[in-house]
């Protein structure tokens, strides 16, 4: 019997459960279907987090490979998409830390906190100012802002994906918006 038969009923739709069971049996067509159902949203989030097309491609691939490799451990406590997003976020953040360390080693004077983004300091328009302000946010706060205000995830989804309480997600978002308003208030005064 496929291992996915142990999945809980309430979180994973029956069709997705069947797909997961087929992937566990080595069915690559089912793997492709599962991938197509989730890859666009995962790739969007990963790109928003890292801001680099090649890295986004690598991190998305790594996330799916890891998810498929660990599919036997997926028990359906959360939706498959949420579980997958958690893996994608972890892969992306770890990958970005590695890339940042490498870049710091190669160019110690480069203090740009973003990856694959240009410095926004010389460009005074609002969009650039906001981009710079988002890049300057603490990691968890930035992640919550991107997921909620840009990608439209709910606090429940963010909480499950990041392994935090919903209240933490809400307070991080409040913090992020406050910091953005501060940055923009200075811009409006100028």
């Amino acid at each position, binding site marked *: 019997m496929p291992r996915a038969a142990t999945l809980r009923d309430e979180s994973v739709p029956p069709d997705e459960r069947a797909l997961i069971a087929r992937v566990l049996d080595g069915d690559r067509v089912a793997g*492709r279907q599962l991938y*197509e159902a989730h*890859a666009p949203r995962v*790739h969007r989030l990963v790109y928003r987090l890292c801001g680099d097309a090649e890295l986004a*491609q690598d991190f998305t691939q790594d996330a*799916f490979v890891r998810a498929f490799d660990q599919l036997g451990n997926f028990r359906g406590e959360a939706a498959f998409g949420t579980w997958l997003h958690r893996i994608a976020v972890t892969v992306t953040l770890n990958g970005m830390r590695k890339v940042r360390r490498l870049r710091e080693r190669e160019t110690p004077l480069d203090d740009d906190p973003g990856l694959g983004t240009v410095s926004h300091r010389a460009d005074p328009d609002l969009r650039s100012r906001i981009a710079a302000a*988002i890049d300057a946010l603490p990691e968890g706060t930035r992640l919550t802002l991107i997921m909620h*205000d840009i990608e439209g995830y709910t606090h429940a989804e963010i909480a499950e994906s990041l392994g935090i309480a919903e209240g933490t997600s809400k307070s991080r978002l409040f913090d992020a918006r406050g910091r953005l*308003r501060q940055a923009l208030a200075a811009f*409006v005064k100028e």
Partner: protein
Amino acid sequence: MTDDELDERTREALRGYRVPPPPPLDEMWDAIEERHFGSPVVAISSRTPVAERSDRAGRRRRLGSPTWAIVLAAVAASLLIGVAVGRMSRGVAPQFVDGTREGTYDYWTANAEPYRDATTEYLGQTAALLTALPAAARDGRPDARFVGQASELLSTTRLLLDSPAAASDARLKTLLEDLELVLAQLSRLPEGNGGAEIHLITEALERRDVVPRLRSAVVSISSDDDN
């Protein structure tokens, strides 16, 4: 600037933060498939070497059921006879026509009459099946005949993929590879419970413009026949 204006401009600016490019879905899947499942058996890109594909197709055929083996043997025989007759009647091997790679289904401008009828018929049947897909998706209950027809067409697809026509015509090969994936999915649909899967397949078809490409191929190959 009022608070409301500032909020509105902030939301607008947030939407423009690191706007993602279209995801390279096929490219990423190739890498994922290779890393997780091993060498791909069903690929939708055209980057797989022809020799490797032939080996894999051979493996697939060996794994087929006896009933399908008979059908496959019959189709294979007709294709092989067609090739032999075509080559003998023209006296030359199939030629690839340079300079028309993007605009036409090249192989059909050379010596492929024996393949043409079989391929045109196959493409027409596949177009009809895929056109019927949205109705099946609405019902969510593909019947045995629908699934059986997909299996039959899948077998023909794989034979055509291994034929000189696909080897000589990059566009046809890519189309056949896409159809192979779609038909493989359709032929594995569970009877009476495939609504979500059909929906996914329909979405994939639309995303990859499979039906318009199929119709274009039928028109292109048929018009070569008329010339």
